[in-house]
């Protein structure tokens, strides 16, 4: 038995080696730019422009210190973290309410409502820039945190994603909650939410990344550098000293620091995320 298993293993060995090689090279291709960025931040200006130098002779940790202490980058990161956290919290909340209504409640015009919501999804974002700009201007919210947040309170993608997840919940569970005197609010947060937590988490992750990195819209409605999000901030930082004067090592350090929160978040959530997949639906099929 054992020898057969071993034989089998050897028989498939070339295949798995090949598989591993392909995966490893793809993985390397993915992580290379990030590694290059992180390592380049430790180089001197000369080392950085010389492609034969892979690792710096003396790591210039001062580059990171300079970005952290003497540049507005931490401020941009804080801006991005704050704006995206608040925005995503609202998007999750509004998405959950709307998806719940569309899936579990019966009311006149439900189909039409959802069609309108989905219709909005079809409109290209760029087409809404001007009307939204005018709207924000009239509300006096240009160049404010509130403007950045309010213009993204609802994510249609989130509504759609949560609706799909809610539709997987057996109707009996919702009915059992109704028999148990639970109102809609309680049903949503005590019964529906715990069952669809993985979807909430994956949506939160996607939305956070999108919001954190958002460039076009924030740069249209904000002007003061104090309000810049990271992408915009990096650009300021980048062009500050003109194309020839750019200190690439500092740009690399700034970029690495800007990316770090997302990587950290991903590492933290992914573990949680996988653990929560495969939850039982509680209803015997």
């Amino acid at each position, binding site marked *: 038995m054992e020898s057969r298993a071993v034989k089998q293993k050897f028989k498939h060995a070339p295949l798995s080696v090949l598989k591993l090689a392909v995966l490893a090279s793809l993985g390397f291709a993915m992580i290379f730019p990030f590694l290059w960025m992180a390592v380049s931040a430790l180089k001197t200006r000369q080392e950085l422009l010389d492609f034969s130098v892979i690792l710096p002779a003396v790591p210039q940790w001062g580059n990171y210190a300079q970005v952290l202490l003497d540049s507005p980058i931490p401020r941009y990161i804080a801006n991005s973290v704050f704006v995206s956290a608040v925005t995503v919290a609202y998007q999750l909340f509004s998405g959950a309410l709307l998806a719940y209504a569309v899936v579990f409640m019966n009311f006149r015009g439900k189909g039409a409502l959802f069609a309108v919501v989905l219709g909005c999804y079809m409109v290209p974002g760029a087409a809404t820039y001007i009307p939204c700009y005018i709207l924000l201007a009239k509300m006096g919210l240009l160049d404010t945190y509130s403007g950045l947040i309010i213009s993204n309170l609802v994510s249609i993608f989130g509504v759609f994603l949560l609706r799909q997840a809610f539709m997987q919940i057996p109707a009996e569970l919702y009915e059992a909650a*109704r028999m148990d005197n639970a109102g809609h609010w309680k049903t949503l947060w005590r019964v529906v939410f715990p*069952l669809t937590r993985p979807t909430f988490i994956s949506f939160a992750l996607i939305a956070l990344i999108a919001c954190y990195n958002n460039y076009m819209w924030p740069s249209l409605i904000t002007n003061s550098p104090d309000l810049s999000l990271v992408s915009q901030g990096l650009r300021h930082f980048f062009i500050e000293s003109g194309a020839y004067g750019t200190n690439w090592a500092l740009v690399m350090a700034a970029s690495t620091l800007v990316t770090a929160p997302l990587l950290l978040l991903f590492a933290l959530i992914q573990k949680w995320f996988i653990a929560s997949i495969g*939850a039982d639906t*509680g*209803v015997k099929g």
Partner: protein
Amino acid sequence: MSSIKLKGITKSYGKNTPVIKNLNLSITDGGFTILLGPSGCGKSTILRIIAGLESTDIGSVEIGGRDMSGVEPGDRGVAMVFQNYALYPTMTVRENIEFGLKNMKIPKAERDERIDESVRMVGLEDFLDRKPKSLSGGQRQRVALARAIVKKSEVFLMDEPLSNLDAKLRAQIRTDLIELHRKLGITFVYVTHDQVEAMSMGTEIILLEAGAVRQQAVPSRLYDAPENLFAARFIGSPPMNVVEAKALGAVGLPPAVKHIAFRPEKALLMRASSPLPYDAVRIRGELTAREMLGDRVVCKVKTDSCCIYAKTADEFPPEYGTVTVVAHREHLHFFDDDERRVEVS
């Protein structure tokens, strides 16, 4: 007081023809009433209408003399056990049972007391901290029962609660439910398509077909005196034998009688040559199959016009071949052209 009255209920889904049309129903207070019928007869819909989970096109529901129009399911004073248990998977057994009580704003001390009492009734004391997914089907069903018991409702609605359990467990929970009903003394309404469950547990059976009541009676009456051919053919295993009166050439019957029926349990099998008793119908046929059930043997007899089943306690039923099926006059049931019962003196 928790009798249930359905008045002039009509229910349709979308623009389809109604599944229930002008239904009037009265369910006795404190009884174990079974809604019995084949799939699609509307029995679950009726239960859900009583629970308030389903709206009606017209008609009203009264529970304990109170009109339930516009009353939310949770406020109707009814508890429900679902076919698929419908336990909250992310909550422990205790939390599942407690959820309704918390929503009813019952103080902690009373909640604990009630939970202890209900889990003791269903024998789940040791499972309070488990999640539903680590319980067996039977245990999950008990949690669902405890969740309903704990609310101390006046009415207990059950939608085929045993259909996902194996035969042995089903038989056991059947007797448990009878005991539970006697202990609680409240109104049970139980939906099933299984006549064995209906006959064994019910104090009253409402037999339904296509959204209409075909007979409402105590189980023995339903068995002994079916009001129509549908009831005759639905109850019993195998169901009643129905033969055309014409085919039997029976004489001395009122002209209204078109069908004659008798239970397989009352049919006797005799060798063609045996002397036949007086005042009985006899049908000659071919014995083609015998099923040994342990205490009984079911014999299938093919005649010229139909198939007849005879269930006999005889240890030595006749050999395969030509036999005569005999049914005494006193065991015969008569039905007219509209398949309704005709009393013949």
